[in-house]
């Protein structure tokens, strides 16, 4: 495979489930400092692409290169160690733990069995947890049991759990689902802030929100790329309009 400058370079990626190609010879390149949004109708294969990148699903063929490192051969935790973070569609946080503990557990030190037994919460760790917490608007909720957070706050917390690991590629699956208008605005601002110095890949349905954050939009349809470009050109693309409105 070719050497690329892209943070993420997906080439010829295919996955088939019993003959059904959920992702079909996909090519996708994401740059550093870029915030890419992937849109598409239900069943287009958006979430499957994220699953493939983070190792949840194994690809049938093709390659996924992250900083020129082949991800398809790595185990899930190794992909995370390489610098890829992924937020799930439904907020996935540890409801029994406090906001603080959720972030502490995600802190990228003491990741082995014995490392975690000997892990000490130093001032550095503590400062970092508080820094991330205020970044995700939860600075005042550190001691709250995370089950009691609102749906939107849970979404933020999960983003925070990824941010604390400082990933170079951040993947967010529907980050504003279930959020109020105000929360959406805050999230847009958050994403614009955190995409500096890293690449961010977002799946989203809310077009107003996409317009606010996207540098570039990729439209998926039946496992293939239908269109790619800035928001304006994608919205005016007749094929895209056909897919979204035609059926």
């Amino acid at each position, binding site marked *: 495979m070719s050497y690329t400058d892209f943070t993420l370079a997906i080439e010829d990626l295919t996955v088939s489930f019993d003959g059904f190609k959920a992702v079909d010879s996909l090519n996708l390149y994401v740059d550093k400092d870029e915030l890419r949004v992937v849109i598409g109708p239900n069943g287009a294969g958006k979430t499957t692409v994220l699953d493939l990148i983070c190792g949840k699903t194994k690809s049938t063929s093709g390659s996924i290169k992250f900083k020129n490192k082949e991800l398809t051969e790595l185990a899930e*935790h190794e992909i*995370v160690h390489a610098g890829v973070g992924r937020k799930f569609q439904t907020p996935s946080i540890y409801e*029994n733990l406090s906001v603080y503990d959720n972030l502490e557990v*995600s802190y990228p030190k003491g990741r082995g*069995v014995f490392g975690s037994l000997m892990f000490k919460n130093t001032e550095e760790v503590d400062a970092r947890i508080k820094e991330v917490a205020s970044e995700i608007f939860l600075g005042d909720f550190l001691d709250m049991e995370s089950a009691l957070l609102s749906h939107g706050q849970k979404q933020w917390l999960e983003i925070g759990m990824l941010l604390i*690991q400082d990933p170079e590629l951040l993947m967010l699956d529907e980050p504003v689902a279930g959020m109020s208008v105000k929360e959406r605005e805050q999230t847009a601002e958050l994403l614009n802030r955190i995409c500096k110095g890293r690449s961010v890949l977002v799946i989203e349905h809310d077009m107003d929100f996409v317009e606010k954050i996207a540098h570039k939009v990729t439209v998926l349809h039946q496992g293939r790329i239908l269109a790619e470009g800035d928001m304006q050109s994608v919205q005016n693309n007749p094929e895209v309009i056909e897919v979204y409105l035609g059926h």
Partner: protein
Amino acid sequence: MNFMYERILGGKNGAIGLAILAVLILIVLPLALDLFRLNLVGKYLTYAFAAVSLVLLWGYGGILSLGQGVFFGLGGYCMAMFLKLEASDPVTTKIQSTPGIPDFMDWNQLTELPWFWEPFNSFGFTILAVLLVPTIFAFIIGFSMFKRRVGGVYFAIITQIIALILTVLIVGQQGYTGGINGITDLKTIHGWDIRDDSSKYILYFINAFLLLAVVFASRFILTSKFGRLLMAMRDKEDRVRFSGYDVSNFKIFVFCFSAMISAIGGAMFTLQVGFMSPSFVGIVPSIEMVIYAAVGGRMSLIGVIYGTLLVNFGKTMFSETFPELWLYLMGALFIGVVMYFPNGLAGIWEKHGHKLVGCVKNMQCVSSIKTMIESKRTARLSAESASGK
């Protein structure tokens, strides 16, 4: 010092709970009970090792093992093998056709000691074996299951089947294991008679101290980041995996550790009760251990010890009077606890204990009840007058 207090004792509440437990099993029970009853408590406390192991594994880790009896039994058998060899010296066994080997081997026409029995002549090796044989066995099971992501009910069923297989194996290989009767007539450690009254006291205290040490070690694990990860894995395994942790390694570790704890209990059982048999290995004892943990509260290291004592006292009392009813009662107890008190005794204590403590402390119970009755009466009166209108 702070480390000791927070991490090992578990802060103020943990320290108080531990102190009460320590006073109970180290001072109150030895003074209050005769030797026969105390020996019985000692036996119960050996089961508590397995119950504590289930707090880590099941309570925090969410991994239900229905095979803790396997590790309890392996630990017990390792200890029993040493004691049996010492009890089978050529002089006492001279009437056998092959003197110097355990009696059951002689009955089964064995003419020499099997190779795997040889090292159990050494007490040092035996102690190592008690700790390591079950741990290595748990590692093999854990590695082959958790790496393949077998979990939940499948894991429970497989561990239960392993318990069954091991029982069948022990019973079937009579010449090597003593069969259904187990390994009996255990007498001395390097000439120190374990059946003496004084030895029974000493063994009881060794057992009690070991149990407290195991609680300390478990507390250390649960208050570390490892402990929080265990809970996190129980709730959202994928989130932990995609936060960069190799989940299976953590599960393997906690399974091995729980096996080692249970094995210590098994070895102490053999020493205090004086024999080991397949009936402490199989499905029934393994499930009973889960019941002790459920009744005591599977999230509480201390609660499960009380749970174990309580259920076993109940078992002894009821099975003396209504032997045929006990099993049904135990089943009903388990169902009842799971349905109505999912956190067991510890949960009840957490919910209502502080009221009790507060009452005893301030003697405000009476006045608080008075106020309560008073306010109820006013409420009723006003309701009556309202409806009267």
